[in-house]
């Protein structure tokens, strides 16, 4: 049994515990202990991983384990992690932990809510540890399905519409993905020993170039839908706007990262030839995402819409950087995933808390909140500054790594798109400061808001955890970047060949 399976076992035990809980206190205890254990396990994994690497273990994946699951189709429960997966697992654990505190008072049906939430986290962890295509796909679906119920039942506004839209669009992506995966599987080996194992497929390098050109777009778009790639991003504003706080956090913070992760782990890593040939198409799409999302965010009036469009822009940058396929830009992409995950989770947590008090998310109906709820407002400013790339917070290091890496390409096409992407730092400042100026500063808009209270302990705890993580990456970026770079190098070198 590999140590990695802990990340699946803990949530399963948690679900059992939740099932048996009888009242709110027990539910909270189980959720807190379970998510804390996950966080500890994730930190331990990082330490162990770095220890092994320091000890000179240069294998591509560590902590590998392989159990045959379905012999006829060569489906294995195969797990293993490299630096990128480790970083993603840590991210997920932090956000699940913060998410539990953000939904401390969830109502109605708290037990069911947490069970679905934990099921979702099983999918996420499982996805990041899998190195078998089918298992990976299965966990991917496990992560998507609960979203429908979580939004449909606990959501707000047009929740049925949003839940349906989100699920259907992501399912559409999955359908393409499944085709792609099957295509890869049936061409995974030249001598007939078909395999689902990513490492083996990469080692065989047997997918014909002509077929790569078909399967690459299928898988890339399939994962790209979840990564909010233009023009498949429209589930994101509606979905986020209707989702309850913790679900928004988890969805924008972790689930959207599944998209980016899948894009490079499956699409780019397994089909390097097609990546080189076709990346320009997706570079255009993601380049559009970057400034399209940013400009759209400038005129939105709903807080969650602003953040959803901002996510389109930031996640667009992730895919954009991946498609630059050099080590620096791809390292930046992974750092941007971490950074975006943490700060969007923070944003959505804060928006949820503000909405819970003011009962509006329309920025025109709020104002002067800094005076009424200083703690939440200060946190919101910090999240905003992280988003617009202030040095010392995580956004800056990620963006700079991406820009430096992307600038390494000398051809005019990529240069132009890089410069275009750079301009997003100005537009980001515009929409962030617009919101901050409107809702936090200025005179109080609504008399009723004067009676509102500031954050309570569990809300404070949730936001502080995220802020520490954001600042941690921002102030000490070297360890994160080293952790990621080593693993990314394998992939980028494979593409450049």
């Amino acid at each position: 049994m590999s140590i990695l399976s802990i990340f699946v076992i803990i949530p399963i035990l948690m679900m059992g515990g939740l099932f048996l809980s009888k009242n709110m206190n027990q539910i909270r205890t189980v959720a807190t202990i379970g998510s804390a254990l996950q966080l500890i396990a994730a930190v331990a994994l990082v330490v162990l991983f770095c220890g092994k690497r320091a000890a000179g273990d240069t294998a591509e994946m560590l902590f590998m384990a392989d159990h045959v699951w379905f012999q006829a189709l060569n489906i294995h429960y195969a797990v293993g992690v490299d630096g990128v997966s480790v970083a993603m697992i840590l991210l997920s654990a932090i956000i699940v932990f913060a998410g539990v505190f953000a939904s401390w008072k969830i109502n109605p049906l708290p037990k069911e809510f947490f069970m679905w939430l934990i099921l979702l986290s099983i999918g996420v962890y499982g996805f990041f540890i899998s190195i078998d295509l089918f298992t990976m796909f299965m966990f991917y679906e496990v992560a998507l399905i609960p979203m429908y119920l979580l939004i449909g039942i606990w959501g707000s506004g047009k929740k049925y519409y949003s839940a349906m839209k989100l699920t259907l669009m992501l399912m559409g992506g999955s359908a393409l993905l499944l085709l792609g995966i099957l295509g890869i599987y049936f061409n995974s080996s030249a001598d007939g020993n078909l395999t689902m194992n990513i490492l083996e497929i990469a080692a065989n390098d047997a997918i014909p170039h002509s077929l790569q050109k078909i399967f690459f777009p299928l898988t890339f778009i399939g994962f790209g839908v979840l990564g909010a790639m233009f023009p498949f991003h429209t589930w994101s504003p509606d979905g986020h706007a209707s989702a309850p706080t913790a679900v928004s956090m988890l969805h924008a913070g972790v689930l959207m990262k599944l998209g980016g992760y899948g894009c490079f782990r499956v699409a780019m890593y397994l089909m390097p030839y097609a990546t080189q040939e076709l990346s320009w198409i997706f570079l255009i799409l993601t380049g559009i995402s970057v400034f399209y999302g940013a400009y759209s965010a400038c005129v939105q009036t709903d807080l969650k819409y602003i953040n959803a469009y901002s996510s389109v822009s930031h996640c667009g940058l992730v895919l954009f950087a991946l498609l630059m396929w050099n080590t620096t830009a791809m390292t930046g992409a992974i750092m941007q995933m971490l950074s975006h995950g943490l700060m969007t989770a923070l944003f959505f947590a804060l928006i949820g808390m503000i909405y819970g008090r003011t009962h509006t998310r329309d920025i025109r109906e709020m104002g002067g909140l800094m005076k009424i709820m200083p703690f939440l407002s200060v946190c919101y400013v910090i999240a905003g500054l992280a988003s617009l790339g202030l040095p010392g917070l995580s956004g800056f290091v990620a963006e700079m790594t991406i820009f430096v890496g992307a600038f390494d390409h000398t051809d005019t096409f990529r240069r132009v798109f890089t410069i275009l992407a750079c301009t997003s730092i100005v537009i980001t400042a515009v929409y962030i400061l617009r919101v901050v100026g409107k809702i936090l500063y200025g005179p109080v808009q609504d008399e009723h808001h004067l009676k509102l209270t500031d954050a309570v302990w569990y809300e404070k705890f949730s936001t502080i955890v995220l802020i520490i993580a954001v600042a941690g990456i921002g102030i000490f970026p070297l360890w994160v970047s080293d952790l990621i770079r080593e693993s990314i190098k394998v992939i980028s070198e494979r593409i450049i060949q």
Partner: protein
Amino acid sequence: MDYSFSILILALPLFMFLTLALGGNKMSQKFAGLLGTAGLLTIAVLSYMVAFQYFGMDRVDGIRPALMPYNFEWLSFTDKLTINLGILLDPISVMMLVVITTVSLMVHIYSMGYMHGERGFQRYYAFLSLFTFSMLGLVVATNIFQMYIFWELVGVSSYLLIGFYYTKPSAVSASKKAFIVTRFADLGFLLGILLLSFYTETFSFDQLTADGGFFLTSTSGATFMGCSVAAWAMALIFMGGAGKSAMFPLHIWLPDAMEGPTPVSALIHAATMVVAGVYLVARLFPVYLSVPEVLELITWVGAITALYAAVVACVQSDIKRVLAFSTISQIAFMIVALGVCTSMIPSEGGLGYMASMFHLFTHAMFKALLFLGAGAVIHAVHSNEMSDMGGLRKYLPITHITFLIACLAIAGIPPFSGFFSKDEILAAAFNKSIFWGVWMTVVAAITAFYMFRLYFGIFWGKEAKHEHTPHESPATMTIPLIILAVITCVAGFIPFGEYITSNGEAYHIHLDMTVAITSVVCAVVAILLATWLFAKPNSKPEKMQAALPRLHKWAYNRFYMDNVYQFVTHRIIFAYISRPIAWFDRHIIDGTMDMFATVTNSVAEKIKGFQSGKLQVYVWIYIVGAMILAAAAIYTLCIK
């Protein structure tokens, strides 16, 4: 020599910031103020120690060596490109340490009186510490990326301090404007850095500036739109500097930034942060010398800004705005001084470098003094408008005298410090060409005119009605004024050429008598003109205004630069880019997605009739189907 204690210069303000930000609301105002001031006093003393040690050191090969007591890796991009954080001590950074800590200390002391009893007093001191930390980090940067990092941090401190009175809508929009305009300029800076580092494969200043030619050889041949890549990179980097230093046309944020508390204007928007652009050009001076076309651009930008801001300053009625435009104009002097340089050797065209740094030093002192004096005036009459002032010399004697000293200094009257530094700039401009010399002398004369218009408007002229008699400020406010006034009186006699020159070798400053006499005569004439117009209440100013109505109106409205920006941002970017994109997204892209759903639904709606459960229909369809099949079978089998 041991400089390891210099890390404290950075660590202490950061620590002060965290203490005041996290624990501020548990402290009393008095304690927070004293804590902040005491911390800054320590930092100032440490900086003076560094300065004494550094300038007391013997020269090596005729120059003062650049030292790097700290430099560690913070983030690595590639094998060659890494961001280091460290401390670089060389003549200009040590001078900046002294300038920043001195002005900051004065502002800390002054604020205890000025901000007394304000809501958010602790927060104010926390932000001041954050600013001091960022600014010190900026000047001691060992590489251009470290500079960029702290560059952004000073930007955000400035944002927070301009928006200090956050319930006031004008302050909020001013802070937003300041941040976004400088951010836009920083985009140029960032692209410049990326371009520069792509070709040179280094961020570090010592490698970039090493013998000037290193950079050029590594980029030789690469051109873009008719200019070398080197020129593009350096011009883009200058764009960042122009944004921070409020050069035309990126100056529009600075006058609005006066919405912040006055001591903040003195510290950030007069003495320290706004000269970051000058410092940046000085830091990369050898590289700029190798791209003369960019230096030409810098000179033009500086000269136009200097003239523009000086003209606008003549007609503003808000005293802080007059000072803001005066700051823009004076910084432009420093920029021009750098722009007119033609070589590294001070006696052969490199004089401007020394002049620029000298003016930076003296200007920081007298402009901080002017702002703090203006703060004392505002404190006394509770208004920024000149019409609410007049005749205040009786009520505010200390402020009056110190303000007069500063006005004489900025006007360039000997023996005050501004005379010496401005004279060097004019000499450098005349060295380059008579055109620039005359241009800058004219601007210097306008400077003297508007400063004395301001002086007479506040302290002489017609006395406005006051609700209660204005009174002199408390000692915490007057002591910094006196200290700065003393520095302003003596700073001109510092043998600046001994410490800072373009090539590091000692240069003996000597006054160029023709230039000095011309400029002093011009200044005196301008002052006399101002005296004639404004010293006594009379109708002459109105007459002048009536004689040149259009010029006055345009200058008063700052030549409508703000309206141009307003038009571009609101009319073009918001109305013609953002809104259509948002509409397109909701209606076209999302509409397409929804269309798939509606089409599926309606098709399903159409075909669901087939599953009606009515047996007759099923049988009927069955028979029709069977007949069609039979017909088809017969057709294929028999006819063929």
